[in-house]
């Protein structure tokens, strides 16, 4: 349980995500802290270190997700499984606000994930605004990863 994900596997996960966080869609290029391999189903809950259970995640999303697998939809109060980048498409559950600075949850799963992972964290929203002004946001062509 307490072993680091092997380096070759980390490289595959990063390349599969094209170096974007699979939750908040931040680009690793602008992060001083390297992104991390996220166990979608946490190891403590029996999640295995296999490609089907791994996502590429920024430092912040990984920290906020921690061992969570479910969260409440703020609209309905219902407990919902968090977004799974290996089994679901990002654009089915999330969209961008009109100015592209905030992630909007389109479904129960999306709304619960936005809240649980705090996808609109202060620094991340600021970064999106700046990158938008430089035509570097939102990311393009990253929807194919499932």
């Amino acid at each position, binding site marked *: *349980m*307490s*072993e*680091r*994900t092997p380096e070759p596997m*980390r*490289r*595959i996960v*990063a*390349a599969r995500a094209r*170096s974007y966080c699979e939750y908040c869609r931040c680009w*690793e*290029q*602008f*992060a*001083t*802290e*390297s*992104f*991390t*391999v996220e*166990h979608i189903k*946490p*190891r*403590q809950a029996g999640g295995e270190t296999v490609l089907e259970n791994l996502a590429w995640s920024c*430092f*912040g999303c*990984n*920290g*906020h997700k*921690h*061992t969570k697998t479910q969260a409440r939809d703020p609209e309905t109060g219902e407990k919902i499984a968090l977004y799974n980048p290996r089994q679901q498409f990002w654009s089915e559950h999330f969209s961008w606000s009109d100015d592209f600075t905030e992630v909007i949850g389109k479904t129960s799963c999306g709304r619960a994930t936005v809240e649980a992972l705090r996808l609109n*964290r*202060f*620094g*991340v929203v*600021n*970064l999106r*605004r*700046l*990158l938008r*002004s*430089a035509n*570097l946001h939102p990311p393009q062509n990253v929807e194919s990863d499932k």
Partner: protein
Amino acid sequence: MAVPTEIRKRAIALLEQLPRESLVKAVEFLEALSHEALQVSETPNPQISEAALLQIIQHRLSPEEQDRLAYLRQQNEIGVIRDTEHQELLMYVERVEQQDAERAEALIKLAQLRQTDLKVLINEFLPKHSNIA
């Protein structure tokens, strides 16, 4: 006088106490403030020197803080982090992400000042992450 992180925490705490109907008004107000802040930051300031921008771009956590953060991240990744350590990690998240945004802003301004492609400066100043295949 309260430090900025304390003020932010206070603001978040107040927001969390608001009933849903007031929350909509609060968000509208915050969006207006945010828009104002953006306009201020977009106003060209000829007095911003290259040295000042470089200072922001090159600012990093102290070696001790970086070591501590590396430890916390490792504990989190291998699934043995304690609750108090996890809270400490989240405080680093807030701080590092805000610094990353400030660094990006400084890079964009420096690119304008030097009339250089932003990608050239990214390659020059931002870390190359070894995990990128």
